[in-house]
């Protein structure tokens, strides 16, 4: 069997093809996974901005301020009911209207409690809330308010009574993820 003579140019071309292959493969992988990687990046909460008590901070087209976090009831089974009040002044209505809103309470050990629907009897314990319908964060975002509007936002939480004193509100919005806000609770 005789060896086929390969010209100098063809050998060079083959070498070049071999070296190009890893580059093309890496490029293909990048192009295929780019959207997934971007989506992952925009869905994570990676960089917290600490907001001092009574201060406002900008996030997702609005200025956000914590106006109250109160324990309003303690159930017989060791559950505490907490009400969170926030104020948002809309600056950029388009960015503000992006859903969904993630407003949770976070303990120092990283555990997080999502808002829960509370019975009116639990919500009405606060005299200033009696007869009022305060929108939740997602309801406020979905209401598409105009620039300059000031919104009052309220959420209810159920968590272990022992952790109620050490939790802090955390707010993250799709327009700004992976950055999010962590509010200090006054006093």
């Amino acid at each position, binding site marked *: 069997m005789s060896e086929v003579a390969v010209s100098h140019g063809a050998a060079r071309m083959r070498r070049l093809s071999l070296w190009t292959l890893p580059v093309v493969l890496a490029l293909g992988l990048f192009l295929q996974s780019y959207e997934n990687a971007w989506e992952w990046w925009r869905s994570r909460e990676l960089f917290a901005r600490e907001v001092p008590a009574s201060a406002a901070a900008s996030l997702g087209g609005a200025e956000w301020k914590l106006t109250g976090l109160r324990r309003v009831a303690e159930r017989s089974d060791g*559950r505490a009911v907490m009400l969170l009040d926030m104020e948002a002044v809309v600056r950029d209505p388009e960015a503000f209207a992006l859903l969904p809103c993630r407003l949770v309470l976070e303990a120092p050990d990283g555990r*997080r409690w999502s808002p829960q629907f509370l019975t009116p009897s639990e919500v009405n314990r606060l005299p200033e809330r009696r007869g009022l319908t305060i929108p939740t964060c997602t309801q406020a975002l979905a209401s598409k308010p105009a620039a300059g509007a000031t919104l009052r936002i309220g959420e209810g939480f159920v968590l272990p009574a022992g952790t109620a004193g050490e939790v802090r509100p955390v707010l993250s919005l799709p327009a700004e993820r992976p950055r999010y806000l962590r509010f200090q609770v006054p006093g």
Partner: protein
Amino acid sequence: MSGVFAKLGAPLIAALLLAGMQRFTPGYAEITGPIPLKGDLGETLTGRGFTVRADKVLLAEKLRFKAYGREVERDTGGVFALVIARLDAQPVSTTVSGAIWRSAQGARFVASPRFQGAPRLLGTDRLEPGLPQRGVFIFEVPREAVAGATLLVAASRWPRLDTQAEIALPATLGTPASLLDLNELAYE
């Protein structure tokens, strides 16, 4: 000799490799399927978003419970299999709505939807970290699906790249009680 090998051996090895890859490469559904977490009765299993411990399995032919102020009784052509269990969310609030009774033959039964409003039904309310729920999963299964079954617990019915606890249940269970009252079960 080496020339013959190059002509016949190399394509043969390549063909074998390709055939092997085609035969044994797991499918996409398998690669992105549930992540099993195996355990036994009485063992606490800690998954990605929840912990679960199954304590007891009970069988009954009829179940009675109070729902929305009314007394309800349900019977079955098979048998009701009840698993008393404890669920806890960790580290964030979650719902564990994917409980499945897998028989020894591989048949899968989802939790029965015939017990809406029953007390301490697991998988219906959201779990909050630090506030464990003790309650019951209820399945309606044929009698031959009872022995050697496995309880599967996950956040959703078809978890993708997420924990699915697989709790081996006893190989033999006693004869079913003729009637159990869900309001009087010892959950603790």
